[in-house]
């Protein structure tokens, strides 16, 4: 439904929240459940207007717990589904994010990060949820998280998030921040034939032979949906390949949880994306992501102008963490600078990957991201 209305091919002037919503629709999202929260509300508002035009569903649920539950339900009924929120709502979603992981429900969750903890700074940017997205739900698991730096990337990465979610049957996150969400920039939306779309693998066996959690070689099980005649069961309990609960069986638990982790870990080289700028001879490497990466790029260029061999490693994929790229950049570098809008989160992963090369965190809290001068000063200090 709504084919020609689904992809607004052309050049636009948009906010990041709107671009995110358009990216979702272009990717085939036809179900949005959410709850209003600054600074993600405009995604819901735009979805409320646009979803009916493409024959899709918008529902405002009673809270974020219900929103993510409805998204998982819609995903199991066969639709590409999304929700969008910010810190407090993201916290409420954590339990059912674990359910989406455990039942391998493809879905996209947008977290427009603001200043926390708690209600914090609703209208101001932050990067304080980048560990919560990895570790926020209980139990052991892997997810995929992308960090857009521009309004264009709010479109592009939301499309990519759906493709990754469908490929790996895993909740996939767009970790935006208040600035990329509310900023207005030029966005180019390509014609539909130039947008790569991935749909989940369907089972090729009959009902009697179908096992909903029996993986293929890529560790991802083909997915039947409700109403297709497979009559299958799914549960948040530890389950075997049939989907039946096996809560007392340590072998089943090991096999399941290890596979849920391995399907991301063993495919990490295919999933991970970074942007490398002037890293070949870099003595000082700035590792940054999201809106901060734009200041970092400016700082690196200024340093080069002044004869300092600086380079930028921009993390596009936050999770799985691009450890190999960090390790490679660290080999020749004297120092790594990690500016983040938090008190030190991704820097821990950088330190693990960089081994002996020291990593210096540059925190920033409050209203604005780091200025290029602040990052430049850190390059000079440690370079």
């Amino acid at each position, binding site marked *: 439904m709504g084919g020609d209305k689904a992809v607004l091919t052309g050049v636009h002037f948009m906010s990041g929240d709107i671009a995110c919503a358009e990216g979702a629709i272009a990717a085939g999202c036809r179900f949005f459940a959410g709850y209003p929260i600054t600074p993600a509300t405009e995604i819901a508002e735009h979805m409320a207007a646009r979803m009916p035009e493409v024959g899709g569903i918008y529902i405002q649920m*009673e809270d974020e717990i219900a929103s993510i539950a409805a998204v998982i339900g819609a995903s199991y009924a*066969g639709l590409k589904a999304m929700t969008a929120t910010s810190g407090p709502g993201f916290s409420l979603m954590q339990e059912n994010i674990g359910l989406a992981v455990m039942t391998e429900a493809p879905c996209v969750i947008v977290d427009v990060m603001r200043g926390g903890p708690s209600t914090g700074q609703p209208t101001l940017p932050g990067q304080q949820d980048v560990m919560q997205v990895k570790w926020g739900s209980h139990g052991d698991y892997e997810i995929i998280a992308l960090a857009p730096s521009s309004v264009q990337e709010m479109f592009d990465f939301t499309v990519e998030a759906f493709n990754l979610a469908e490929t790996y049957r895993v909740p996939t996150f767009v970790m935006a921040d208040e600035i990329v969400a509310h900023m207005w920039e030029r966005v180019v939306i390509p014609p539909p034939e130039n947008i790569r779309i991935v749909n989940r693998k369907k089972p090729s066996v009959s009902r009697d032979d179908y096992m909903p959690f029996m993986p293929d070689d890529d560790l991802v099980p083909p997915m039947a949906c409700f109403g297709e005649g497979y009559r299958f*069961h799914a549960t948040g309990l530890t389950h075997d390949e049939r989907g039946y609960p096996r809560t007392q069986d340590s072998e089943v638990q090991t096999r399941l949880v290890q596979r849920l982790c391995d399907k991301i870990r063993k495919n990490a080289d295919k999933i991970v994306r970074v942007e490398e700028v002037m890293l070949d001879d870099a003595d000082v490497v700035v590792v940054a992501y999201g809106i901060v990466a734009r200041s970092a790029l400016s700082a690196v260029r200024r340093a080069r102008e002044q004869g300092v061999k600086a380079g930028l490693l921009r993390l596009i994929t936050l999770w799985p963490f691009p450890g190999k790229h960090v390790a490679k950049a660290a080999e020749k570098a004297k120092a790594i600078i990690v500016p983040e809008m938090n008190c030190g989160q991704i820097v821990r992963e950088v330190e693990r990957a960089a081994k002996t090369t020291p990593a210096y965190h540059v925190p920033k809290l409050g209203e604005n991201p780091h200025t290029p001068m602040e990052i430049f000063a850190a390059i000079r200090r440690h370079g």
Partner: protein
Amino acid sequence: MAGAFEHPFAVYLRAAMIPHIWCSGCGNGVILNAFIHALDELRMDLDKFVVVSGIGCIGRTAGYTNVDSFHTTHGRAIPFATGVKLAKPELEVVVISGDGDLFAIGGNHFIHAARRNIGIKVICANNFNYGMTGGQVGPTTPLEALTTTTPYGNVEHPFNLVHLATASGATYVARWTTLHVRMLTMSIKKLLQRKGFSFIEVVSPCPEIYGRRNNMRTGLEMMEWFRKASVIANFSDPAKAEITPEKIVVGEFVDIEKPTYEQLLYGKIAKIVKKE
């Protein structure tokens, strides 16, 4: 399982999931039995049927019924079912869960689903306590009842579920006990044939966990309470139907029609798509 002696209802159950986890004297089997009878009598299309449960003893029902089924996190069966129903409104979506799951941790979802009149069907096994975790006080535990977390007697007023459902906007509301098997089956058939948000409370014995602390040590004693206390009064005022030791008003309380959420929503979508 195939063969001359296959049970006529075998098609409705996942044999590999049996034996079930329920205690002797539990009412959950009666509820599942009535549910399957209703499915069978209505000749429901099992390929277009989804059972969703939350957490708790009765929550295992989703796994036992041989249809598309999903066992959610605690309290979240209704919002999950909401997503399913909106994505594929042609599916019959039934939530079978317990009083703690639906009305404590999931209470907010229940009232909003009823308010929207989304066409999902909810069957609640009310056993007056949290059975699976060993018998703690819940939102329907009677005043003064003894549970593991009210060792001196319950001082919380319980919900009157049929009143709550009616006030929240449910279009079909009934209450039965597991003693009323035929009425319950008839009522589930009606529930499955209604369009809007429909609700049945089934008062269910939990002798092993609840009853034995409250002078009803066996399933029989609990059923005896239901027999003595039950009064069938169809379309009586749900506000006056609080469950007390002396009186359990059972019957149908509401059976009305109003546009469902999915009818209104898909109606809007059809108009907007056409205009485009």
